[in-house]
C-alpha cells in the first residue's frame, strides 16, 4: 500500500448550541497522511485550533472501531462519507486526494436536534426502544440456552438485524427523515427468534407509534437508508415490519 500526504479544505458546520443559528466555517489542513482515519484528521485540525486559541470542532465519537455508533458525520452529502458499509471513524484518508474540499455537516432531522457543531441528540432512538424493543424477561432462572433450538438461518438473520449500531445514518440519508430501517431492524431481530414471539404484535405497534411521536417521517422505500447503513442492514427488514404491522393492526381491530 503506497502512502501519501495531502492538503485539504474543510467546510464544517459550526453551531454554538441548540438555539443559535449555525453556519459553515472553512478550515485548511496540511500534511494529512493517507494512513490516518477521518477522525484523526479532525484531531489534527482540533489540535491546531487549540494551539491558535480558537475553539475546536465538537463531534461525537468513542470506540473508533465502527461499533459503538457514536460517530455521525455527514460527509460530502452522504452519512459516514464515501465508503460503503463504513462508519465515519473507520473511513480512512486514502479515500481522498490532495487538494480536495470536504463538506462536513451533522445529521439533519427534526427528531435529531443539533446540540453543538456536529453533535446531535439521538435520544429519540432510546425512547423507541423503551416503547417495546426488548423481550420482557427478568433476570433469574431462564431455561437452558439449548432448551429451545433456533433454526440457524433465523439466528443468522436475527443477528444480521441486531448488528444495527443505532447511529442514525438511515435517518440522515432519508429525504423524509424516516427511522424505519432502525425500527425494523429491532422488530426483525426480536420477532425472528422464538423468545420474541409472544410480544410480537404489541412490539411493532408500540414502536411505530413512538417513532411517529418523535417526529420521524414516513417511509417511501427509496432504500437510501440501506445504501448508507454502515452495518449494511437490509430493507427486507422494513418489508417484514410492514407485514407484522398490518397483521397486528388487523388483529387488534377485531
Amino acid at each position, binding site marked *: *500500500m503506497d502512502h501519501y500526504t495531502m492538503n485539504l479544505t474543510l467546510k464544517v458546520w459550526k453551531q454554538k*448550541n441548540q438555539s443559535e443559528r449555525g453556519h459553515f466555517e472553512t478550515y485548511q489542513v496540511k500534511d494529512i*497522511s493517507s*494512513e490516518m*482515519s477521518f*477522525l*484523526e484528521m479532525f*484531531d489534527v485540525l482540533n489540535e491546531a485550533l*487549540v494551539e491558535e*486559541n*480558537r*475553539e475546536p470542532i*465538537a463531534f461525537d465519537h*468513542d*470506540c*473508533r*472501531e*465502527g*461499533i*459503538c455508533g*457514536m460517530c455521525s458525520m455527514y460527509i460530502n452529502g452522504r452519512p459516514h462519507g464515501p*465508503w460503503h*458499509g*463504513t462508519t465515519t471513524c*473507520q*473511513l480512512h484518508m*486514502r479515500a481522498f486526494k490532495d487538494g480536495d474540499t470536504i463538506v462536513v455537516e451533522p445529521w439533519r432531522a427534526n427528531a435529531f436536534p443539533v*446540540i*453543538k457543531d456536529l453533535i446531535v*441528540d*439521538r*435520544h429519540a*432512538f*432510546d425512547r423507541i*426502544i*423503551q416503547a417495546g*424493543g*426488548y*423481550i*420482557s*424477561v*427478568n*433476570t*433469574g432462572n*431462564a*431455561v437452558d*440456552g439449548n432448551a429451545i*433450538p*433456533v433454526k*440457524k438461518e433465523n*439466528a*443468522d438473520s*436475527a*443477528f444480521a438485524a*441486531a448488528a444495527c*449500531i*443505532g447511529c442514525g445514518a438511515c435517518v440522515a440519508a432519508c429525504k423524509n427523515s424516516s427511522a424505519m430501517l432502525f425500527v425494523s431492524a429491532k422488530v426483525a*431481530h426480536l420477532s425472528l*427468534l422464538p*423468545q420474541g414471539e409472544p410480544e410480537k404484535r404489541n412490539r411493532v405497534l408500540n414502536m411505530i407509534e413512538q417513532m411517529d411521536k418523535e417526529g420521524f417521517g414516513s417511509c417511501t422505500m427509496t432504500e437510501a437508508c440501506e445504501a448508507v447503513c454502515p452495518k449494511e442492514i437490509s430493507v427486507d427488514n422494513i418489508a417484514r415490519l410492514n407485514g407484522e404491522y398490518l397483521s397486528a393492526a388487523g388483529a387488534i381491530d377485531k
Partner: protein
Amino acid sequence: MLDSKIPAGPLENKWNDYKGHVKLVNPANKRKLEVIVIGTGLAGASAAASLGELGYRVKAFCFQDSPRRAHSIAAQGGINAAKNYQNDGDSVFRLFYDTIKGGDYRSREANTHRLAEVSANIIDQCVAQGVPFAREYSGLLNNRSFGGVQVKRTFYAAGQTGQQLLIGAYQALERQVALGNVTMYARHEMLDVVVIDGKARGVICRNLVTGELERHFGHAVLLCSGGYGNVFYLSTNAMGSNVTAAWKAHKKGAFFANPCFTQIHPTCIPVTGDHQSKLTLMSESLRNDGRIWVPKKQNDTRKANDIPEEERDYYLERRYPAYGNLVPRDVASRAAKERCDAGYGVGTTKQAVYLDFRYNLINKYGRAEASKHGIENPDEATLVRLGKEVVKEEYGNLFDMYEKITGENPYEVPMRIYPAVHYTMGGLWVDYELMTSITGLYALGEANFSDHGANRLGASALMQGLADGYFVIPYTIGNYLANEISVKPIPTTHEAFEVAENAVKDRISSLMQIKGKQSVESFHKRLGKIMWEKCGMSRNEKGLNEAIEEIRALKKEFWSNVRIPGEINEMNPELDKANRVADFIELGELICIDALERTESCGGHFREESQTEEGEALRHDDQFLYVAAWEYNGEHNWKLNKEELEFELAKPTQRNYK
C-alpha cells in the same frame, strides 16, 4: 483492616450458602431505596436492569449519548461459560481452575469460583433476552476456543459478541426505564462521590451538554465505570474510557488494588504514526485459526507470501507445543516482543508479527467444505474459495475492519499484528460482596480487581461484567440495604453535597484559569509514552523510578501550562478530557509505584529482574502472594495494605503451557 468477607465453608458451597443466609429487603422497602449506577456497560446495564426489576429505584449515568454505546460493545470474540455442551471435559471446576491459573495465582479464589458457577446462567439469561448467539444447523448453540484453555467453552456472535450482549442488557435497561424503575442520565460524568458518616450517599455529576453540576442522592452507589487502559494513551479502549469515577472514589477512601496489573493484548493492528489516536484489537478468537509467525532470518524484507514455509518460524508452536497459538495473552505478547526486539519483526516499522490464516483456511475449512460438497481431490484454488466462505462467516467483520484500517486484504496476505494495551485487571479493591473500602460504595466489572489476578483469559471480561451485574450484586446489595431501610433520602442540600460540589467547581475553575500553552491531548500523549516505555510489557527498577519522577514533573507542568478553550457552562469536550487526563496522571504514578514494589513477575506484570532462564515470568509466592491495596494519603503519598491470598483448591504452581 481489609476484611474480604469470604464466607466460611468449602469453596464450592460458599456462594450457595451465602445466598441462603443473606439478608433480604422486602418489596415494599425496596421501593424506598435508591441506588446510583455509574456506567452502562455490561456490568452497569445489567446491574441497573436487574435492580430495577427487583423494585429498587435506580438512577443510571453514562458519559456517552446513550447507554448502548458503552465500550463493552466493542468486545469481539466471545463469552465463556462452563456449559460443557461440547462434551469435551468442561466443568465449573475447570473454568474456575483455568481462570485462576491464567491469572497467575493472583486472584481471589472465592470470587473466581462464584464467577465460574454463575457463568452458565448468564448464557441462559442472554438467550432468553434474544441475544442471537452463533448456532449450529441443529439449532443448538455453537462454541469456539480461546487462549489458555483446552476446551471449547466460548459462546459468540460472529466477532461482535460484546455488542450483542450489551444490546441485550441495554434493552433490559430501557424496559426498566419505560416502567419507571430506572431513570437514565446520558451525557453525564461523575466527578465525585459524596460520603456522609462513612457511607457513600451520592454523587456529583457534570451534565456534559450544559456544563452544570448536579447532585444526586443514593442509599448505595455502584461504580461500573470500566478499566483504565487509556492511562497509556494508546489502547484498545474507547476514546472516552476513563478512570475518573474510580479515581474520585479512591481519593475519598476506596483502596485501589493491583494497579500495575495491565493486560497487553497480543493481537492488535500495529501503530502507523504519531497521528494515531487509538489501537484496534483483532480478536483473540482469530488465534483459533490464525498461526503466528515471523521469518527465520533477521531483517527479512521479502513479502510474507514470498517467504517459503521452511523459512517461517511459528514461534508460539515451537516454544509452547501443548497450547501453541492459544497460549494466554501475557505469554503471547511477550513472545512477540521478544521476536521483534531480536530483529525478526515485519512490516515497515519492524514492530509487528504475522497472523496467517492460509493454513487453516485451506486445510481445516477448505477440506471440510470440499468433503461436504463431495468434491474429490480439490485443487488449492477450490479449497481457498470454499474455506474463505467459512472464515467470512466466523470472522467477517474483523477481516473487513482490518482491511479498512490497513488497506490490505487479510484473506490474501497475513495480518500484521502487535501487542497493545487492552484491559486492566487491577481496579478498586472489593470484598466478596463487591463493596469497596467505602461502606455502601460498590465496584463491578472491569472497575474492580477481584477475578482475573495478574492476567485475564480471553472471553472472561464479558462473563465477569454480566456475572457481577445480573447474578452477584442483586444478592449482595440486599445484605447492606436491609440495614438502610429506615434511612430517608438525604436532601442534596446536606453540607456534604455542598462541600463536594464546591470542590468539583473549584477544580474545574482552576483548570480553566491555567490558560497555558499545551493542549490536553499533548499531555495525555506524553503520559502514555512514559507509561508504555517504562511500565509497559516489561518493567525494571530503574525505568520505574524514572517514570515516577517524570510523571510528577508532568503533573506540575499540566497544572501550570494546560490550555482549555471554551467555557465552563457549555458543552466543552476539551474540558471533559482535561478532567480525565488530570486523573490519569495521578493514577500513572500509582501504577508505577505498585509495579516497583512488586519485584516479581506474574501475568501481565513482567519485571526484568525476575525471570527464568528461558525468559518466562518468575513469581515469588513466598513474598507476593497478596493483593496490593493502596490507600490514598495525600499527594504522592500512598499506604500499602495487603490482603493475603489463600489457595484452597488451586494450589499455585509455575504456569506451564508447554
